């Protein structure tokens, strides 16, 4: 076999290794990432929203469902974590778990209602339900701070195995967040490689055939939806700790739109694409918003150009061109 293989280019071989060891490669990259980004807060933004896009991609890229309501999971994860910390004095670790659990619950409810529909209706139902979540949190002002957002999610030090780490130090903060994102990435990869991951691909490829094989497509979609919500909820909880505040905009539908853009920019259905997409989006935003207040217009133009000329996204196109066959 090896003798017959065509000579491989260096890039191809290199990307082949990356694809085979996707967790190690992604983690290695993220460990070094703060060194190449202008400042650590931006690196942490990319890290956390990259996780958000990763969770979204489970549904969009791997199961073939386009949700326009994922802000609901990022937001309820963030609020769940923040409220637990601010109002109930829960420890930081417990607060993260509570935020993630709340998002999972919200995903179960929205998913249960949405998976009955398909295509554009699915997108509309998730959008409408996520707006309900927005208004629910908006109205619960005593708990959520209403339109001012939830303030005071201040975490100065965190105890890890008896060590006290300063969460105010941006480097420490980045690597604490990375510990959680890293575990999530590992779990995500396990999930994709599992038999259930194969079912998700089958549903994405051909729902009718999956059904004819004996798969309960509706149940599969619901499980994928809930898991996707859980990953996005974890991202939300980490974001609350990172920002020390939960802006109400977290739940806004524009946040749902952002993750669609990130996933498409990076490459839907690719493992590393969500982080590439989040980095591209946030770097563009960071650079352009200094230059012009119309930065969203330019981000939009870049996005449209990508959809037209690189529909597989940045990472997806690289894999297509140089990736392992």
């Amino acid at each position: 076999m090896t003798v017959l293989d065509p000579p491989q280019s260096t890039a191809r071989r290199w990307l082949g290794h990356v694809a085979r060891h996707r967790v190690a490669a992604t983690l290695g990259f993220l460990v070094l990432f703060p060194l190449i980004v202008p400042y650590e807060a931006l690196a942490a933004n990319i890290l956390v929203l990259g996780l958000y896009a990763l969770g979204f991609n489970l549904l969009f890229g791997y199961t073939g469902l386009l949700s326009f309501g994922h802000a609901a999971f990022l937001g309820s994860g963030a609020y769940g974590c923040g409220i637990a910390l601010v109002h109930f004095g829960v420890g930081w670790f417990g607060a993260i778990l509570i935020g993630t659990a709340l998002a999972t619950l919200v995903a179960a409810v929205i998913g249960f209602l949405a998976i009955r529909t398909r295509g554009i209706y699915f997108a509309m139902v998730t959008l409408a339900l996520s707006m309900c979540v927005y208004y629910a949190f908006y109205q619960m002002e005593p708990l959520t701070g209403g339109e001012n957002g939830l303030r005071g999610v201040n975490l100065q030090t965190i105890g890890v195995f008896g060590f006290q780490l300063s969460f105010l130090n941006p480097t420490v903060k980045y690597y604490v967040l990375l510990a959680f994102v890293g575990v999530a990435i590992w779990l995500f990869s396990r999930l994709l490689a599992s038999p259930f991951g194969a079912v998700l691909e089958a549903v994405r490829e051909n729902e009718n055939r999956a059904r004819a094989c004996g798969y309960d497509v509706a149940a599969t979609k619901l499980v994928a939806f809930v898991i996707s919500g859980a990953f996005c909820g974890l991202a939300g909880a980490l974001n609350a700790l990172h920002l020390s505040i939960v802006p109400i905009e977290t739940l806004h539908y524009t946040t749902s739109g952002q993750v669609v853009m990130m996933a498409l920019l990076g490459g839907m259905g690719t493992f590393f694409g969500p982080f590439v997409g989040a980095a591209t989006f946030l770097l563009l935003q960071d650079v352009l918003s200094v230059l012009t207040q119309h930065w969203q217009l330019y981000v939009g133009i870049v996005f449209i150009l990508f959809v037209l000329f690189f529909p597989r996204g940045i990472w997806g196109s690289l894999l297509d061109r140089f990736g392992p066959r």
Partner: protein
Amino acid sequence: MTAASDVILATEGVGKNFGGFQALRDVSVEFRRGKLTAIIGPNGAGKSTYFNVLSGAFPPSTGRILFEGRDLSRARPHSFARAGIAKSFQITNVFPELTAQENVRVAIQAVHRRFELFRHRRAFPELYDEADRLLASVGLGDRRLRRARELAHGEQRSLEVAMALACRPKLLLLDEPTAGMSPEETREMMGLIERLAAERTVILVEHKMKLVMGLCQRLIVLHHGELLAEGTPDDIRANDEVRRVYLGQGAH
């Protein structure tokens, strides 16, 4: 009357209505266990519609479907597969971006490990072995690592048969498995079907009567959504009405 256990699948007064259009009307048939039964009829006769009702793709508007005595009229599509009914579609229906091997492996997995989330799919090598064995049995042994969309049309049809066999069905349903095939591919497919039918119950939808006459033990003839005739190939050959329908179509 046949003994109840001889009947694997039966429809009782099955009808199907598409927004006012009666595609199927009052079809009552008993399919015998272990036999190869062909459903024939001119284009538009309602064969695919009947096939879809039998395979659970959609429920009948009226009437009942009994599989081994169990009423499946309102069962959801995936329950048909779990009950032991497998099918290949008239229009090729595979997982295009997955390899041939993964297509079959996923179909096998449907029987055992639907919601296994935390183990690696490679941790179950027996599924890969079985997939390779099935692929070899339909003549795709050397194509197993190709993506399904890269396979030739005839190969995709064979792949679909392998996927249908993956769940070890008690009943195999095939809708025009030779549609769009070259004469060479058609001959191979008919040979494969003959081998498959030696070991299990097969119901085959076919538009070309000539293809199935020498192969099947029973024939069902549909016309304008109704059951026109039923019997052995000799009965059907001798049936004037059937001959008229087919001659009227210019086919025979």
